[in-house]
């Protein structure tokens, strides 16, 4: 079994198609939509957590690629600008997945990008604006 968080970029022509439905029906993958929106240019973006057998997962990804969906691993999306971060910690209670947490020893804020679901709640509430989004 695998469980992975991925970012899907849908080109304009795919926005109206039931692609996620196929992932369930054909590839027996469980999904959890973490975020989804359509940009003004009508490109779709969806952050998904996919859960299922490794084989099915790989086939599902192949299917998505064959449709023209661009796939990106999630951890690349939100990064912390270490220069700007003052390690205050006001982001910690805002982060829904504890990707941002306090190291009790150093009193510094750690960022575990593997846990990040790119909800971006931290981005605007960070006083020195150290959390940056890179798509």
């Amino acid at each position, binding site marked *: 079994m695998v469980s992975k968080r991925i970012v899907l970029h849908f080109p304009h022509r795919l926005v109206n198609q039931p692609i996620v439905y196929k992932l369930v029906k054909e590839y027996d993958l469980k999904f959890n939509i973490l975020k989804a929106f359509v940009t003004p240019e009508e490109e779709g973006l969806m952050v998904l957590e996919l859960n299922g057998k490794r084989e099915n997962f790989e086939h599902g990804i192949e299917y998505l690629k064959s449709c023209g969906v661009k796939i990106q691993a999630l951890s690349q999306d939100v990064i912390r600008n270490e220069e700007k971060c*003052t390690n*205050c*910690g006001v*982001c*910690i*209670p*805002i982060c829904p997945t504890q990707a941002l947490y306090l190291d009790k020893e150093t009193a510094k804020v750690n960022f575990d990008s593997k846990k990040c679901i790119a909800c971006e709640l931290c981005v605007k509430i960070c*006083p*020195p604006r150290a959390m940056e989004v890179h798509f």
Partner: protein
Amino acid sequence: MKTIKEINEKIKKGEAVVVTAEEVIDLVQKKGVKKAAQEVDVVTCGTFGPMCSSGAYFNIGHSKPRIKIGGGVCSLNDVPCYTGFAAVDFYLGATALPEDDPRNKVYPGEFKYGGAHVIQELVSGKDIRLEATAYGTDCYPRRKIETLVRLSDMNEAVLFNIRNCYQNYNVAVNLSDKPVYTYMGMLKPNLGNANYCSAGQLSPLLKDPYYRTIGIGTRIFLGGGTGYIAWQGTQHNPCVPRKENGIPQSPAGTLAVIGDLKQMSPKWLVGVSMLGYGATLVVGIGLPIPVLDEKVIEHAAAADKDIYAQVVDYGTNYPNCVPGSLGEVNYEQLKSGKIIVQGKEVLTGNLSSYSKAREISEELKRRIKENEFVLSEPVAPLPGADSGYSFKSLKERPIVTKEE
């Protein structure tokens, strides 16, 4: 037992024993107050949090022909300055915003660039765009100027913060059913989070709660350079209830501080943006406590568990100036990452960087040990816990115009 003069002699000989406000806690616990007081000469404190009542004044020198910016209009990178002084003196406040900033018109506003950011860029050595218009006089004929300026070319550039270094602060929560955007950060509805803002056991005024060693004229670490306590800060409120250990249970004393901006660093003066609230300056302050007697070190040894703060509702009560606490918690509980409020477990976040506060206390310790920083004698005390000095609310009175 010891005088500041004697401690300074030791500093000059490189013999002073200096510990941070964190290290002194264990030390006193192990050796006892008496022995620790004999051994230790100075305890260094630090804090690094947003402090809105900050700003800097400048004298930029006279242009040819001369311009009287005083009484005119002046901005640095479009952020307006206060010009009500002589010809080329002006003051830039940390929370000042460019005229065309949308503020909270698109709610919550982002406040990406304000006076605080200009100050940080100035201390980074960057060129800043100065624009000013004036009404013109016989001796100052020029009406308009646009030029790049930088810190090193200015005559004076002085950080002068009228309220910094709060002795304790509220823990902010939101009891309402919608998010609120405050100077204490974003507060999620229905007790979604609890934000606090203090270095606790490292915070200067919490470690000398009765201001016994701190006063007007005390030399401090300010924004990376050297500064001084100029006065008590605005809203200084020393007479609030205190715990048995003398530490105020709610926001109390404050400091007005001053220092040469040219010595300071962008590491210790950081312009920040509080979503939906405004721009503000995070200021790094370090303060030395001379161990004059046992009482001083006993106070300096207060730990997070000994320091209490009040939980305040920023959803309804704070904005309406309704007093009242939802309970009190100590800084050990706050730093554990969660507290209990009204029976609910609430995650905590700090606006004040403890790791940076620690770094400041270490840096000040190094400076004292290496004789780069000697202590100063305060020239006058700050209004104390029995002074009767207090922080009042505004009494509004109707403006009655005389009928002709």
